[in-house]
């Protein structure tokens, strides 16, 4: 091939680069490793993390069983190694599965349209806020303090230079739910959106209907957030919300130390053209057969550039496909049964511990302990990772732990946690 190019050496391929920009030495990296050594390296690193521990951590990342079918599907080269489906005629597999994903998310959330995924729940949150700003033309955001603290941090980062003012709404110290009175008080006609999460960061259910009523009374939108998608198997969908943003990690996406996950962004039909990200639509091919393609791309950066609804390009398609397979495997009855099991497990443990809040909860709750660090250390000795100490995010909850139970939590481990509590 060099011959064809009339070159003597591979290095001649960049002979035109100014010598000053070149690296005149080899990269200081170890020599290339064999597959076996690479597998071994990562196995060794893996063994340095918690291995064989039971865990009661939730807080936005949940330990659910991953059906084997999920990897079977996403490991197929045709899904794994294809690009964004711009060429519809040879991408109907991806396009069809995204259309199904969009449909199932609408069924789950009660929204009319859902996009093909965002990076994760935390980045979907500011995208929802920005969307509300575009829709309402207003620039104040009210966010419940019961929204995941890291989501709120991301919201602040994204909105800092967008001329958006973010204000927080406290929670009721008894119920652990958003303080609706304070919301009512702070919500006025300058507010673009009210952001709530349910079940909230404490695991407590919010009153979406009332929050929506308060927001809507002022012409503001209600943005409903979720971190625990499994809850939607049992909980009333947020039909009163205008925009739904959330995290699908619970749907067969491994915790994987924080990512990759998949974010959701869905809305009422009338806001469709303000959605960021990719959308797949149904159409026909030239022979009249049903076909799917990417659509409404006039919202997107590659067409609209600085006027786009967002800069998002690469999304989380393969991870969204995992969620699609998960929803297919569990289906109508399964997602409900799964959610019910989560509920039962959490309430089994919840009943044995000192719960900090009185509000109804799904599979997470806050427990009060004397010394969270000591409590967790004691459990660690039993190969159990306890709850998340809340002091870091909520100084006033220094003596509290956030605990989560899923269908994977075994009674024997829950009993051990309860024992530790009993002292």
């Amino acid at each position, binding site marked *: 091939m060099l011959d064809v190019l009339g070159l003597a050496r591979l290095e001649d391929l960049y002979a035109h680069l100014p010598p000053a920009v070149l690296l005149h030495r080899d990269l200081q990296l170890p020599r290339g490793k064999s597959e076996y050594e690479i597998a071994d390296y990562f196995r060794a690193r893996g063994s340095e993390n918690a291995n064989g521990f039971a865990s009661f951590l939730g807080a936005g990342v949940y330990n659910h069983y991953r059906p084997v079918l999920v990897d079977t599907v996403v490991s197929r080269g045709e899904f794994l190694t294809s690009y964004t489906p711009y060429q519809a005629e040879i991408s109907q597999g991806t396009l069809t599965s995204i259309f199904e994903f969009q449909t199932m998310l609408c069924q789950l959330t009660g929204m009319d349209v859902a996009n093909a995924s965002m990076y994760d729940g935390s980045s979907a949150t500011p995208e929802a806020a920005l969307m509300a700003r575009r829709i309402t033309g207003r620039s104040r955001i009210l966010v419940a303090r019961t929204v995941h603290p890291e989501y709120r941090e991301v919201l602040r980062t994204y909105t800092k230079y967008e001329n958006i003012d973010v204000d927080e709404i406290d929670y009721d110290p008894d119920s652990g739910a958003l303080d609706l009175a304070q919301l009512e008080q702070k919500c006025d006609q300058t507010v673009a959106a009210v952001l709530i999460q349910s079940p909230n960061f404490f695991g407590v259910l919010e009153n979406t209907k009332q929050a929506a009523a308060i927001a809507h009374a002022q012409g503001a939108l209600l943005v409903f957030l979720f971190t625990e998608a499994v809850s939607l198997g049992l909980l009333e969908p947020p039909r009163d919300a205008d925009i739904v943003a959330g995290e699908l990690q619970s749907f067969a996406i491994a915790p994987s130390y924080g990512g990759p996950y998949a974010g959701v962004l869905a809305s009422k039909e009338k806001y469709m053209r303000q959605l960021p990200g990719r959308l797949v639509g149904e159409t026909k091919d030239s022979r009249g057969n049903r076909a799917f393609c990417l*659509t409404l791309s006039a919202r997107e950066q590659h067409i609209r550039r600085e006027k786009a609804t967002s800069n998002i390009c690469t999304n989380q398609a393969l991870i969204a496909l995992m969620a699609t397979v998960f929803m297919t495997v569990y289906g109508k009855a399964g997602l409900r049964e799964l959610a019910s099991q989560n509920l039962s497990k959490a309430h089994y443990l919840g009943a044995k511990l000192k719960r900090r809040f009185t509000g109804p909860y799904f599979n997470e709750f806050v427990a009060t302990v004397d010394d969270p660090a000591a409590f967790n250390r004691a459990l660690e000795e039993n190969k159990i990772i306890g709850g998340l100490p809340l002091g870091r995010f909520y100084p006033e909850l220094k003596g509290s732990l956030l605990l989560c139970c899923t269908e994977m939590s075994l009674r024997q481990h829950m009993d051990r946690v309860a024992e530790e509590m009993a002292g």
Partner: protein
Amino acid sequence: MITKVRQHPSQNEPLLFEISSPGKHAYQLPDLDVPSVDPAEALGATNVRAEIEGFPEVSEVDAIRHFTRLSTWNYAIDLGLYPLGSCTMKYNPRINEMVARTEGLCWIHPYQPDSLSQGAMEILNTLEQALLEITGMDAVTLQPAAGAHGELTGMLLVRAKHEASGNPRRSVIIPDSAHGTNPATVRMAGYEVANIASNDRGMLDTAALERMVDDNTAALMLTNPNTVGVFEEHIADIAQILHAKGALLYMDGANMNALAGIARPGDFGVDVMHLNLHKTFSTPHGGGGPGSGPVAVKQHLEPFLPTPRLSRLNDSWRWTHDRPNSIGRVRAFYGNFGVLVRALAYIQAHGSGLKLATLDALLNANYLRKLLEPAYQIAYAAPSMHECVFSDSRQAAHGVNTGTIAKRLIDHGFHPYTVSFPLIVHGALMIEPTETEGKHELDQFAEALIAIAQESEQDPQLVLTAPHSTRTSKVDEVGAARKPILKWTPTAGSPPPARPSD
């Protein structure tokens, strides 16, 4: 004659909702080992939903067939060359998929104690060090989830830096050849976009830049090699022009596949850049993602990097959150860890030999350029790096354009190149073969494109109505946008291809 592909039956398949049948299911849960709780009692009856209307009900075999059948309708790297310019669709070694699924790596919670996460943190640090060596930068954050997310992070860093100096400044200069994410990002960071035209060599016009840069210029956002596959030869001058006015040089590193091991942005004046790990460092694209877009900076921008940062204390890793000048988080947790694992595995497989991969990428792009130049109009005479951009100007005479040539390529057995980008090339064909292609596949691709050039002359109608061989013929994208159907309902859209199931 088409020799790359032959026709074969592929299975039809309705949508999940159309094959659902009440009572079917593909799951089985363990028996509950605790008392069952009544949802209405625990949650309040009004909080409990009715059944999820329309949600799928299928058996395991239905499910696997559904997705297997769908998958066969896709083209993929595993099936052949995927020469999308700017996308770096290289082959993704399967060992990466395996290591990302290592139990001790994929079943770890981001909030488990640092003491129980040392292996994961060690991986992150090792990757950071490798990326710094490759880029020549001083510090890097692995938090951004994709290239555009990295761009936003980088622009916020630029802004934070200027604000810390007392003036955020007003605009960011972007060449007209830039990727769409660049201007979109700039606006999200609260800056105005100042467009600058490329010169006739496809490069940034340094004289124009010199005229444009002033005290209100926050940065120049430059892709290098740029989107026409040309290295910005005056990069050192460019950096100097900017720095002289206190502006910063942001490099979009999406095309780092052309540079790794050859040249380092940190050595030619770049202040801040992002990498697309899912391109250069080989995470499979997965039909659209996930990605990872680390942002590397020079020391002066380090204080502003997102929280948390890795730090070393008493021989172990920990997360440091206390960074008063930080722009804050751009996402929860620590980034797309699973993608980071793949990137490190890729770097380990090549090690110091990474340069060889780069050279092969250059060779393949230039080889294709050479083969295609007789039939297609190269956009710029300047030497190509890892990709080459043609225009459809010769074919346009016959009414055929880059979009229709692309569709005809499908009949010839290939995924098309990137169509109509960059915008500065009228009717662009943007071709990036990557280093993982062999000569045979490249030769076949060139033959196909040359054959289409002939078809365009002799039988333009054949090209204009392509593809002819696919199970789905030319898709009506205009119709899709005119009356959007974005989800399945029992009534909307076309009837399913076969009658509903049992």
